[in-house]
């Protein structure tokens, strides 16, 4: 390996990507080569500067960004309908609604029939009463005078 290869290894080492076996080779070369030693030293300085810079972040930016976000909505109407209901629960609910509708429909029909029957009975009774009333003999009214004048 030439110095250029070792310099490539230096960058891999600084990024924690160099294999253990290659690390041994690198450090034994650094012990012998002053050029590569200087290269390693400068590369480490650059790396250190970058690592320090990477942790910097303007504190006010967090607040600015969070303030720009649209406000959180409270539990709204659309949220209620967007909640996912398990399928089996939905099927049971649907079946119950259908059963309830059928029962109500039958009840209403029954009530309608009873009402109709009652109306017919009343009509019949009214007709009977009329017939009885009409079949009575006519009443003659004779004037009686008790006046002895």
């Amino acid at each position, binding site marked *: 390996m030439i110095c250029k290869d070792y*310099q490539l290894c230096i960058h891999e080492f600084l990024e924690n990507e160099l294999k253990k076996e290659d690390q041994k080779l690198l450090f034994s070369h650094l012990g012998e080569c002053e050029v590569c030693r200087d290269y390693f030293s*400068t590369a480490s300085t650059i790396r250190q500067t*970058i690592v*320090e810079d990477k942790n910097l972040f303007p504190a006010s930016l967090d607040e*600015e960004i969070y303030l*720009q976000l649209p406000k959180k909505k409270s539990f709204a109407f659309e949220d209620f309908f967007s909640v996912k209901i398990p399928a089996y629960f939905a099927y049971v609910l649907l079946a119950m609604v259908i059963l309830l509708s059928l029962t109500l429909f039958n009840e209403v029909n029954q009530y309608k029939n009873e009402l109709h029957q009652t109306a017919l009975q009343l009509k019949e009774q009214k007709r009977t009463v009329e017939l009885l009333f009409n079949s009575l003999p006519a009443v003659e009214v004779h004037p009686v005078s008790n006046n002895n004048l």
Partner: protein
Amino acid sequence: MESQKFISFSNIYNNHKKPVYHYALKMVQSSMTAEDIVQNVFMKLFEKMDSIKSFESVRYWLLKTARNEVYSYFRKTKNRKEEALEANEETLIESNLGNEIEEKEVQEMVRNEIDLLPAELREIFALREYSELSYEEIGQIVGLSKEIIKSRLFTIRQKLIKNVAKKIGV
């Protein structure tokens, strides 16, 4: 549902804000503009939160969006950026006049050298060093192969080390 969205956003923001900010900062070389870019990127993320199905490659998406913002800024302020680069060079010459170089000065020198790299090289360097993307992801963002990115990155590092070493007298 809404609360879940806020929680997810908050997690992503806290995990990826620094890589996005430092990428933007290295590219535009102005903290105020970098902050604006970060804001725009995360606002876009929040708008798209409902349509994002997988958050695995969210850093890649954020940096790609940041890149669009950076290049849009470059298009708007092409001339001003060149002026800023010239000013940087002057500062560098001035800072090199002292005889004793302390650690802080060395670090400042390193930052200046990074800022002086051409934009396309600085971008690759920032995506790797500050945003910690893989070679493949960087390749996808800038439209180059993994091998080319690896080789360019080595060239950039060599150049940077050579320049810094020259300045600090190693």
